[in-house]
């Protein structure tokens, strides 16, 4: 009865990912919540693969959060993105590398809109010229940065120090992956593997030795939903969506969650804490929560980067259980000490996630 249909489905969705010369656009929130991710990406691309990745300091937010939060109109966001295309054009680049799934969705949506309504594109050209004196060419390709890591997943595998194998059991780690709604649910053809059986993260997990968990609510939203989160009264709705996913994945005993989108990474991580506080439910086989990683953090870990250099101390759910399974050495004393030797303060350790760190009293209120 089984005919490997799953493979058959995702192979229909392949996209062109450029090989070199990227115009890099950052995320608004990742530098705060997962500060090592973008740094790793740039260092990996430039120093390990020798690729040309260009950044322009004049790049701004895409205004996606405002757009989805109903405060930025469509024309405004299109003009802002057109300005980014203008910066890219001026710098002589043709491939955009996008660090955020929200932005990636915005870029995809705008390019699709212009494809079907050329008159809107023309209008935006005029508006941008009027406002800034700039004009732009559309990019040849747009890639989410996970697409690029996916493309080079075998290069990562070749240099891998810590494959996704549980040292204690010798078994592959069980990984939940979450691509984020705006990665390929709007335009499946823009994502590697489409929306039903997306391969972008699954491909990395498999290439690095892990096993992907296909749990029932795999395709459900993380709960961010912009309006749901941005309005405090609606946050229960947001957390309920994450809870639906955690409940559904719990019986698979996943070792960690791999995320694609800044918003998803944040909410999969932080709502676990919230649910623990509000309802006393702690997920994860060890009862210490399910660690949540970005794909850059994961790539960094398997390549042997120091977990604290990758910014893993900024996660709400402690990652130590995962590091132990992978056999990665880390210095617990240095968790909250920066490379410059500054103490960033030990957070209040919620009772649910006490992994034996120095407890409350010394905290400076992180998160």
């Amino acid at each position, binding site marked *: *009865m*089984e*005919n490997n*249909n799953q493979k*058959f489905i995702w192979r229909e969705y392949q996209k062109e990912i450029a090989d070199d010369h990227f115009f890099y656009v950052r995320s608004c929130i990742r530098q705060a919540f997962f500060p090592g991710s973008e740094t790793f990406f740039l260092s990996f691309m430039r120093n390990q693969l020798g690729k040309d990745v260009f950044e322009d300091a004049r790049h701004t937010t895409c205004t996606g959060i405002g757009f989805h939060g109903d405060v930025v109109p469509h024309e405004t966001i299109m003009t802002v993105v057109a300005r980014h295309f203008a910066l890219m054009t001026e710098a002589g680049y043709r491939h955009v590398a996008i660090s955020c799934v929200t932005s990636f969705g915005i870029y995809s949506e705008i390019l699709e809109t212009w494809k079907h309504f050329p008159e809107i594109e023309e209008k935006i050209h005029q508006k941008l010229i009027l406002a800034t004196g700039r004009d732009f060419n559309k990019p040849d390709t747009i890639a989410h940065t996970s697409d690029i890591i996916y493309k080079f997943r075998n290069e990562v595998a070749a240099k891998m120090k810590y494959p996704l194998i549980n040292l204690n059991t010798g078994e592959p780690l069980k990984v939940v992956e979450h691509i984020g709604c705006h990665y390929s649910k709007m335009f499946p053809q823009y994502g590697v593997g489409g929306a039903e059986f997306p391969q972008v993260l699954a491909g990395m997990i498999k290439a690095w030795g892990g096993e992907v968990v*296909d749990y*029932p*609510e795999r395709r459900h939203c993380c709960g961010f939903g912009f309006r749901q989160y941005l309005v405090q009264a609606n946050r229960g709705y947001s957390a309920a969506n994450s809870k639906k996913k955690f409940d559904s994945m719990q*019986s698979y005993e996943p070792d960690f969650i791999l995320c694609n989108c800044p918003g998803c990474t944040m909410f999969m991580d932080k709502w676990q804490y919230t649910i623990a506080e509000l309802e006393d439910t702690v997920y994860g086989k060890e009862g210490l929560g399910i660690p949540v990683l970005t794909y850059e953090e994961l790539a960094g870990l398997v390549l042997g980067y120091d977990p604290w250099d990758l910014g893993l101390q900024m996660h709400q759910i402690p990652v130590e259980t995962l590091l132990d399974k992978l056999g990665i050495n880390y210095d617990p004393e240095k968790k909250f000490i920066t490379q410059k030797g500054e103490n960033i303060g030990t957070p209040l350790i919620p009772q649910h996630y006490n992994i034996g760190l120095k407890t409350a009293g010394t905290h400076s209120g992180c998160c």
Partner: protein
Amino acid sequence: MTNIKKIAVLGGGVAGMETSIQLNRLGYQVDLIEIEDKLGGHVRNWYKLFPDHKPADEFLEKLISNLSATDVQIKTSIQINAFLRKEKKLCLFDQACEFGVYDAVVVATGFDLFEAYRKEEYGFGIYKNVITSAGLETMFLGKTIKTSGGNVPKRVGLVHCVGSRDEKCGNLHCSKVCCITAVKQAITLRQMLPNTEVFCFYMDMRMFGPSYEELYREAQEKWAVRFIRGRISEAAQNADETILIKTEDTLTGRQLKMNVDLLVLMVGMLPSKGTTVIGKKTGLDFGMNRFLKVKDEHYHANETNQEGIFVAGSASAPMNISDTISHARAAATAVDHYLKTTDHERFSEKNNIRNLEKALHEK
């Protein structure tokens, strides 16, 4: 008349066999041509028939014994792939050779089941415990209904309208037989596995035939089959390989989720590959659902746009077995009438109809 007229019947399923029997009884020389090496078509793979739970092989044996009492020439493993008109005769070609010359051809090439993997949200071909209605019949025939883990399913879900009434897979038509098949299969499940719960997920219950509604009632009353009115939106696999399904329970207006050990997709009927190929080769018109188009739904349900080419059974529309038998018999009388009328008579008949229509119109 020394020259006995010769007829080719394409397709050796229920429709083709019955048409051949009837035409032979009317005195014609019949070649029954089947692409597979055996006669019987889909019924061969079926356990019991609705609504009376008659064993399918019993029915098939009867049909085959009637057929063997005739002198119909049975030609199996033959694929007709070309067609030519020679004056008033119809020539059929097998590979590159001329296979036979006929006075009339009956297309009884039937249906194919919808390929369930196309509704990818239901997970057929992905999850082991998602099977089709045909797969369940195979299990019935083997007298073992087991999940992928080798256990007796404690709960089975039957999904109606898979590949039917669904513009997302390009099939607007109702396949007609799936509702009653689901009711029949649900009862068989309850009979074979008395401790198993059985749920039918339906959009409408279309109990169109005699005794069908009564069987639906019996399923509720005697066999406690549960009916939930809602279309399944997606199926997913749990860690223990059971299947999680989601629907709206439309009659309470709330979302509903449920785990089942076995999910059965009631796959619909599509024109068979053979129907499509023969239709194209012989220049037949297709209707809006890609089945062969008949000249008139009411009065010329076996005639096609091509003179001398007739259609019998589910090549023209989804049909149950009793309708197929009737349609096949009607095809035989239509062919008989065609072969017994001269061109002149046919012409004047056409004129008569036209005049009659005109008169009715003027009235």
